[in-house]
């Protein structure tokens, strides 16, 4: 007995070391073999609450990265939407096996607004394309909410965009319900309101109606949301409606935008030139 006790006393450091080491190894083996490690795991109350605080803090550092991922996802969804919105039409009209090239004609690119103006009369935005794109003029720019403007000039990845808040452009737009179309112009007053003019008298307009881009342009695909009707009046002499439209896009606060490019634009433009002659 005496000897055992003296042995233990002599090697107490080593014994404690190996004892604890065995526990640690056992825990490690346990963690490696069973996925539910009950004793040492991050799901108990204390560690759970600390880890959730940690996640709150750390998330901030990854906002940018997360944002980029979401942008990509949105882009894909938008492209998918644009390529499929003609499907119903395709199904109920004459459809030929080989003319699929004309559908899914739009490509979407991520872009970022780097400067913006909305307080002037002639407003422009600077947009930086976030991925490789062969910029041309007359590309449509849309925000997640609705239209933003049209590319006027470009250099490398940067594009100067005429904002919808600029009286110098008119965008083909239509009433979502009746498909009567007119031109969208800005009167230079309120950055949240534009005018849809030249809508024929025969159209039925009501306050709250949605306005979207029309199909008569090569810049925007048909059906991109623009805004809704807040008031309208009929010009009796000319027989056209003048409709005030509240924009869905808050032009004072646009950050992430998409550039929309029509793949077959050159071909179509050439064809249209041909018909003019």
């Amino acid at each position, binding site marked *: 007995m005496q000897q055992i006790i003296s042995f233990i006393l002599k090697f*107490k*450091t080593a014994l404690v070391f190996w004892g*604890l080491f065995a526990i*640690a190894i*056992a825990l*490690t083996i346990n*963690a490696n073999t069973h996925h539910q490690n009950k004793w*040492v*795991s991050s799901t108990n109350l204390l560690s759970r609450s*600390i880890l959730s605080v940690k996640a709150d803090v750390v998330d901030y550092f990854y906002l940018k990265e997360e944002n980029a991922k979401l942008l990509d996802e949105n882009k894909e969804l938008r492209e998918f939407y644009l390529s499929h919105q003609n499907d119903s039409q395709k199904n109920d009209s004459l459809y030929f096996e080989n003319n699929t090239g004309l559908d899914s004609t739009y490509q979407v690119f991520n872009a970022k607004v780097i400067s913006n103006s909305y307080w002037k009369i002639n407003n422009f935005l600077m947009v930086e394309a976030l991925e490789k794109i062969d910029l041309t003029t007359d590309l449509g720019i849309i925000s997640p909410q609705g239209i933003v403007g049209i590319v006027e000039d470009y250099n490398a990845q940067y594009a100067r965009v005429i904002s919808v808040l600029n009286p110098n452009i008119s965008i083909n737009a239509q009433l979502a319900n009746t498909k009567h179309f007119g031109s969208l112009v800005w009167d230079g007053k309120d950055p949240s309101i534009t005018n849809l003019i030249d809508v024929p008298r025969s159209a039925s307009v009501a306050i709250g109606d949605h306005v979207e881009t029309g199909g008569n342009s090569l810049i925007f695909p048909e059906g991109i949301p623009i805004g809704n009707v807040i008031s309208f009046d009929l010009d009796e002499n000319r027989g056209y409606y003048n409709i005030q439209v509240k924009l869905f896009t808050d032009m004072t606060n646009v950050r992430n935008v998409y550039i929309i490019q029509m793949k077959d634009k050159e071909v179509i433009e050439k064809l249209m030139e041909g018909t003019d002659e």
Partner: protein
Amino acid sequence: MNKSINNSIRFVLFVLLQLFILDNIMFLGYINPYIYIIFILLLPISMNSIQIMLFSFLLGLSIDVFHNSGGVHAAACLAVAYFRPFALRNAFGINFDFKTIKFYDEGFKPLLIYVSIMVGIHHLVMFSLEAFSLKYVYRILSYTLYSGIFSILLILIVLYLLKPTKK
């Protein structure tokens, strides 16, 4: 008494520091410093070795709880605690035996040796147990080397920041 409060604060502080800041560094994708063993480095020399091992085990275990890593850090810390007298004797020489050394008074070289031995042991044990297979010998050694260098640098910086001001 004052000393033990000081040490308890250090314990909590280093665990939180590791979790909130250092675990997010992931330099070049995998190089991560582990500097919480400063707690073990700075435990009083006169402290009983069994106590040191118990505290170290607890320290490692609390890191493990957050990393979901079983007993990896606990084992590594325990090994560090066990080899602490050995490291001290190698670094500070004969003075250690008289328990008269003060970490900061001995100059830079002994401190560097002390920290390097301890970090080396800690990282080697930790990465070995983390991989838990001899298949990954190369990975274990390279992680130990790269993370080790990173940790040693950071630990030395922190040690000099913690240096008590002379009166």
